[in-house]
């Protein structure tokens, strides 16, 4: 699971120097059970099930302040997003295949929506 999250997010948690700047900056701190620095630490320690089961992931507002201020360029938000994606894929399965896309193309559909659908619904 850890490798999957690292692959999706492109984050290297080993870069973290455990300063807590992400959590110090996080505007959603109060609502979260697990905080940005804990996402980094727990993914690194392959302690991921609690993150998947907690509602913390949904309180992230993607304001990216953690990414902006992290002195080591760790990008905790990307990890939280990866946990969300992992959760979503587990529930929705791998149901969007590239070969199906041509039939479903709609000129009014933004390209970005297609990209987003791929990220969410395919492995």
């Amino acid at each position, binding site marked *: 699971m850890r490798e999957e999250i690292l692959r999706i997010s492109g984050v290297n948690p080993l*870069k973290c*120097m*455990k*300063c*807590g*700047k992400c*959590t*110090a*900056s*996080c505007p959603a*701190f*109060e609502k979260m059970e697990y*905080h940005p*620095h804990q996402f980094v630490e727990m993914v690194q320690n392959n302690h991921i099930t609690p993150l998947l089961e907690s509602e913390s992931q949904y309180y992230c507002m993607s304001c990216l*302040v953690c990414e902006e*201020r*992290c*002195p*080591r*360029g760790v990008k905790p938000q990307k990890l939280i997003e990866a946990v969300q994606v992992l959760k979503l894929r587990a529930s929705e399965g791998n149901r969007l295949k590239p070969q199906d896309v041509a039939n479903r193309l709609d000129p009014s559909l933004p390209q970005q929506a297609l990209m987003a659908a791929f990220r969410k619904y395919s492995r």
Partner: protein
Amino acid sequence: MQKIGVFVCWCGSNIAATVDVSKVAGAVKEEPDVIFASDYSYMCSEAGQLMIQNAIKEKGLTGIVVCSCSPRMHEATFRKAAQAAGLNPYMVEIANIREQCSWIHKDKEEGTKKAILLAKAAIAKVRFNEPLTAGETPVTKRALVIGGGIAGIQTALDIADAGFEVDIVEKSPTIGGKMAQLDKTFPTLDCAACILTPKMVDAAAHEKIRLFTYSEVEKVKGFVGNFTVDIRKKARSIQEEKCTGCGACMEKCPSRKTGNEFNERLDNRTAIYIPFAQAIPNIPSIDREACIHFKTGKCGICQKTCGVGAIDFDQQDERITRKYGAIVAATGFQPISLERFDEFQYSKSPDVITSLELERLMNAAGPTKGELVKPSSRKHPSDMVFVQCVGSRGESCREKSYCSKICCMYTAKHAMMIRDKYPDINVHVFYIDVRTPGKNFDEFYRRAVEDYGVDYRKGMVGKVMEQKDGRLLVQASDLLTGEQLLLHTDMVVLATAIEPDKSARALATMLTASMDTNDFFTEAHPKLRPVESPTAGIFLSGTCQGPKDIPETVAQAGAAAAKVIGLLSREKLLNNPQVAKAEERLCSGCSGCSKVCPYGAIDYEVREIWDHGVRKTRRIAVVNEAVCQGCGACTVTCPSGAMDLKGFTAKQIMAEVDAICR
């Protein structure tokens, strides 16, 4: 025909783990002119050197190849060994099979193949080596120290005490540097001024030391033992020999709106000013950007006030050329700019300050006479927050990748001193790691926590917000309790990262001294030659080489001085004989080489030569071997191939390439 011996070093497992050394020794035996090849665990050891020397004597070797570490490491060692056995030291070639082979490869078979190729190339080269003899040049027995902070002062004092002349060039109007701005010094809390100003006086009074303050190095020519340096003495607009330092001019100066650099711009100074009371020399300078006379042509009050007529508005910059045998870089550091750290509100709130600003706020000679007040309201603070590692240890564009090293200790010092003087102030320190290695350092930090009740929190400050009541709200994490804290505070002190002084880069270019990516000067060897630059004759003192505190700076300053003394006490220096030489039959006298020569080593003379049996008169390049440093710029510039570098001739290089491509 040459008789070549090849010696393959294992370097313990450094080479032998990735290169099959006996296979290398076996493979090169078939090379032309090779009559002996062997391997040994440590070639540089006494036994290894003896093995080389015995082979030279017994087999009558005329050239040797040592397959070992980088020539930067042990070329000198093996040359010396060969010389002791009666072989010309320039008949030794090194094949670097450690740094350029075993250390960077994993596959033993591939590594061995490459090592054999490198050995063959070196053998092909040594076949065309010729014995070279080094000439000698005299040493100018005077040193130049660039930078007049504690590092430069200490280096200069140590060199001068050994009996050699030293010049200090300092770009600001006084010597003293950053240490003069500090209040107390850790871990003993003695006052910086009390231990620094006597040294400043010593330097000024020393008969062997000459100070060039308000001066900058403009041009450096020459080489180790024989540098020629142009110094620009900026116009102070004061005749130094007349000025008595009475200070009447400063009292009367009406221009009082310039930020006082010495007090980190926490107050203002006049346009004609002495940076601080103990400045050396105790002579003012006129800041022409701020002076009303220079801006409007009017005023001139200082000139009228001066009883000795020392004010000279027409004074010009002066250029002085001096000769030196050695140069010490002691250019020091500066705190980084906090422009990009918006979250701390440093640019917006006067109550968010750097640690160096706090030094001035707590100094009895500072803008508040040592009373700690909020800069915004001049009121007594009740809560203070310190943030460590601001700009240090980061990877983004606004941060420095290194640890600034001194911040943990000075923050503990500040926190302790505040709690000692004002027990009513609550002091919080946000840290990532507390790093206090050093004699009595960790004990000092523990005293701040245990005896003075400084509140250390593991975590970082996320942001600082200005409140309507004039206080600051600090949002931070406490990672040990898992809380996000909101602290109402009066002042925030940022332990700002340090970086090399901005003048260092240009200076390094003039000195042809190398720097790292952070603009710290590089040492010749990180462990074994820590106070020397790889450029001969250039030495390093203090924070221009890397972050360090005062005890370390003084230690390094003394070490640099010892190296300079060692150099200056020699009567003559051996030149590098691997210098350029023009082949007179090929040279067309085009002047291309002299234009690219960075050392000015090439002249021309008209000479009579024999060209294919015909006597001709021609203009020919002549290399001054004492000045040439063997850089090779001329050899690649020469359109007719007349320039060659002894020991690195085109023929030798081509033989190396051929040996690899064969």
